[in-house]
Structures are given as C-alpha cells and as structure tokens.
C-alpha cells in the first residue's frame, strides 16, 4: 500500500466534496428554483451561481468548510487498516493548507484553535468493520449552522407515529432559516439516544431523491418532505415553497419504553465525496 498516494487521493476527495456540489443536489436546487418566484427564486439562483463559481475556481462553496467527517466501512482483511487513521489525519492537515479549509477546531474550554482542523476526536471518524478486503470512506464535511439544528427527542412510545411526525415537522420548521434551507433532513428513529442521531447522520449519505428500500419508510419520507414544504419557510427562511429538498429516514429497533427520534439537518451545500480502496491499493475518488 502506497501511503503517500492514499493521502494525496484523500486530499483530492476533500477538495471535491468542498468545491463540487453533487449532481443530485444541483438538479433538486434547479427544480426548486423553477418552481419559485421573487425573493425565494433570488436565493436559489444565488446558490446555483455560487455552485458554479466554486466549481470553476476550485474554491470551497461555503466558507464554513465544516468539521471533517469520515464514515469508514473497512473490510476485516483490508491490508492498510493499521495506518488508515493517521493517513486520514494527515490528509486533513494537508487539505487545510492546500485547498485551503477554514481552521474549525476549537478547544471547548480554552478556545484555542490549533489551526489544522485536527483535535481531540476530530476529524470525526466513524468505523464499521465489514467482511472482505476493501475499504470505502464516505466524506461528509458538515457546517456548524446546520449541525446546530440537530435535535434529539426521547418521545413516549404512546405518541405513536403521529407524535414522531409532529416532533420532526415542528423542529425543522422552528429552525426556520438557520440551517440554510432548502437542505436535507436526516432522521433516525429507534435504537437509543446516540444511535438514532448517528442513523440520522448516516442517512445523509444517500443521494437526494433516493428513497428508503422499505415502502412504508419511503412513503413517510415523502409525506414529511411535503408537510415541511407546506410551512412556507422557504429558501433561507425568507418565504417560499421549498423548505427542504428531501427527508431521509433510517431506523433501528427500539426499547419497549423508548421512542428515540434523532434529527440531523444538512444545509443546501450538501457536500459529500467517496473514496474506495481495493486490497491491491487501487484508489478511486467518486
């Protein structure tokens, strides 16, 4: 395994996520723009102009380049496992200088910012060991404004699915323009407090418009999207028909006494990239 090559490709993936918005999101923004008028349309058109400026200039589409987040699904027999954490951290340090990224890691007690986007537990790396010898790394750099609009509801199971819907719609609408709408509402239902929030975040890896494979979950996604869009909050919270581009739901079985619901919002600058590495060291950035 060539360490230097993997670090180089990880930097390329961070650059891609930060500067090139995925086709699925661009298409959804264009469709929304065509459906809107007035101030709402000005907001969406400005977003699309910004996407072009970022891509053409290879510069971060948003100045909040986020907390660098890596969702790693690594095969138990992947030969490069022992050095992967250090390669990811080195890539973050290098990307901070080369792209550049905003230094976004602040010590919670002293306020000190080391300036390299690295710190205690950051970059955030989620590890899942799977079968095989391949490694898939999903990048989800996440801005502070949208992350501040995450929520956890430990609901009483008696409120049922209606209560779940109310909690989600009330929360997202209550956030109004703060998370830079129209974005993607990630929802995790069940599990426990930590698991539902993690599932909510993982659901954001799915492309905009891609439905959950189970029909009843898929129809709940569409229903919630339409309910939220009926609120009138609109692009950037300035009024309009488009408050979210999509709702994604993942679920886990729950404790009989618990109905945890996690919400993680992703802003319209829904930055993602993926790196795949096979056992022979072949690397692909998608």
């Amino acid at each position, binding site marked *: 395994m060539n360490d230097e090559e993997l670090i180089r490709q990880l930097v390329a993936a961070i650059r891609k996520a930060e500067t090139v918005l995925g086709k699925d999101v661009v298409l959804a923004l264009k469709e929304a723009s065509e459906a809107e008028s007035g101030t709402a349309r000005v907001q969406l058109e400005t*977003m699309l102009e910004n996407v072009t400026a970022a891509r053409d200039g290879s510069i971060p589409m948003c100045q909040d380049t986020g907390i660098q987040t890596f969702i790693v699904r690594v095969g138990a027999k992947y030969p490069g496992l022992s050095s992967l954490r250090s390669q990811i951290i080195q890539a973050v340090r290098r990307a901070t200088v080369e792209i550049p990224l905003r230094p976004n890691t602040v010590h919670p007690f002293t306020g000190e910012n080391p300036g390299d986007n690295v710190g205690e537990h950051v970059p955030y790396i989620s590890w899942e060991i799977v079968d095989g010898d391949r490694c898939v790394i999903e990048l989800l750099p996440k801005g502070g404004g949208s992350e501040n609009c995450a929520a956890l509801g430990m609901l009483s199971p008696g409120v049922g699915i209606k209560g779940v819907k109310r909690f989600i719609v009330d929360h997202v609408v209550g956030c*109004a323009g703060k998370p830079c709408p129209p974005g993607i509402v990630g929802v995790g239902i069940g599990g426990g407090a930590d698991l539902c929030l993690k599932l909510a975040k993982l659901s954001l890896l799915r492309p905009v418009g891609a439905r959950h494979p189970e029909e009843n979950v898929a129809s709940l996604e569409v229903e919630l999207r339409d309910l939220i869009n009926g609120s009138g909050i609109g692009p950037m919270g300035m009024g309009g028909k488009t408050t979210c581009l999509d709702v994604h739901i993942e679920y886990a079985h729950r404790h009989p006494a618990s109905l945890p619901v996690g919400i993680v919002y992703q802003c319209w600058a829904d930055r993602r990239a993926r790196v795949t590495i096979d056992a022979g060291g072949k690397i692909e950035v998608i």
Partner: protein
Amino acid sequence: MKRILQTPISEQEARDLHVGDVIYITGAMFTARDEAHLKMLEEGEPFPVSGLALYHCGPVVRKDTAGWKIVSAGPTTSARMEIFEDRFLERFPVRAIIGKGGMGEKTLAALRKVGAVYTHYTGGAGALAAQAISDITDVHWLSELGMPEAVWVLSVKEFGPLTVTMDAHGESLYTTLGETVHENMQAIHDRIERGE
C-alpha cells in the same frame, strides 16, 4: 438598475431603506462574529467603524506574498449575535448589518433607534461573495481570535444581492413570515392528526 450604496452610509440613507429592497454595497465593511462582538464591547473599536457595513462572517483566507486574500466568505447565522447586537449598534453605529437567518426584537428596536438596516445574503454562497471582495485592507485580533473570529476589514465592490429584511421603521420580514408560518402549521398539525 442596481441600487448601490457607497460607504460610509449616512443615517438618512439607511432610514430610506425598506423591507424587500435589494441593495449592493461598495466601499468598506468588516467582519465580526461572536468573539469580536464581545471584544469590541469590552475594549472598544479597533478602527473607526461608524457608517460601515458589519458582516456576520468567518471567512476562509489565504496568505500569499502580496498579503491576505479572501478565498470564501459567505454569511454566518446572525441569531447568535442577538444577545448583544442592540448594545453593539448603540455604541458602534454601523448602517447595515449583513448576515443570514435574521435577528430578533432587540436588534429590530436598536435598528430603529440608531438608523440602520439588517440585510440578508444567501447563506453558503461563500465563493460568489469572495468575487465581490477586492481586497483585505486590514485585520485585527487575528492571533488572539483566530481566522474565523478575527475582524477582517474588506474593500468590496457591488457586494450583493442583499435583501433588506429588517428596516429602521420597525418592519421585519421574519415577523410577517412568522405569522404566515404559524397559520400554515395549524393546517399541517390537522393533517397529521387526521392521518392524511
């Protein structure tokens, strides 16, 4: 035709603006987020800011041989500054605040008293915003506060489109919109209850 305001903006020019107006700003503005607000309230202004535009922004900047350059510089969430913006405005009479997401009642009252407006720039549009910033003319408190929180003094040309969403007449788009959303939410709750 573009409505362009040149800094320093006078109190009268600010009072002539109304919710819904779209403007562009040319001249000087400075960034200040949570930490810079606190520090200016404690220690005073690091340079004269009266009549300028205050930008809620923590930019990405790069230093090359010619000095600092803006890379990406969109607005941050203004609501965080609501806790001290009224005191800030009364002490440092800027004429336009640029941010995203809007602000609350205390700021609205201060805008009316001082004669200033809150304008909204599309959140996340950092690459586009950078194109309208021609130069960084100065930076204050960089080593103490770090890149996002420092006070960056910017020279801008036709920075916008900025939508006036809170004016000096006590009008706020967010208040009006809030009433519409409140009505819509009653219908949404009914739909959920009926299981439609």
